[in-house]
């Protein structure tokens, strides 16, 4: 299994509070991604990173920010959580673009 750890695995938070999700990898892969999964939508890309301090937006980036200060860590921040951000969040890694991607176990976030 690819060495990807997401934390926390489950979180309940209140509307308006900041939340940070962490993805840690031990594979030294260049690319890291954050996806969200909602019923009826499959997985949708939020943000991705193609190197330390190099990030770009995905399909559903509004309300989210990311940071990557080290190769192994990719953080996803919800500055002010809303109920529409209740979802399951997956981190993924790949060595280069257009190569096989591997996913973490997911973080279930509930915003009440």
């Amino acid at each position, binding site marked *: 299994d690819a060495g990807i750890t997401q934390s926390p695995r489950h979180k309940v938070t209140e509307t308006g509070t900041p939340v940070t999700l962490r993805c840690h990898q031990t594979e030294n892969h260049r690319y890291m991604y954050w996806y969200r999964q909602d019923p009826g939508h*499959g*997985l949708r890309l939020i943000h991705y990173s193609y190197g330390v301090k190099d990030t770009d937006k995905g399909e559903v980036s509004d309300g989210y920010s990311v940071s990557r200060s080290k190769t192994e860590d990719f953080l996803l921040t919800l500055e002010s959580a809303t109920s529409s951000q209740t979802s399951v969040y997956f981190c993924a890694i790949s060595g280069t673009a*257009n190569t*096989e*991607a591997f996913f973490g176990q997911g973080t279930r976030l509930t915003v009440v």
Partner: protein
Amino acid sequence: GIQVEQSPPDLILQEGANSTLRCNFSDSVNNLQWFHQNPWGQLINLFYIPSGTKQNGRLSATTVATERYSLLYISSSQTTDSGVYFCAVEYSGSRLTFGEGTQLTVNP
């Protein structure tokens, strides 16, 4: 952006039956992957198959890139095959785009 359509959306089988899942995509791709999401939510890599045919045990996959589709074959299905099967594609300038999946239920 690229469109990814999976069919059928739902499939119910008896244990031992065979099935074929289809993934159509609207543009040329550099990467195509099949995933199985088990009932616990974990995404398991099945195949990395931008073109050609691969087999892994009871599962096999074929991608015909020129005709923009991929097929996932499951033979002699088992209850542990239940879950959602996703196709995801990547094309120039994009990242993995997922279809909405096929929900497979295998009954004993």
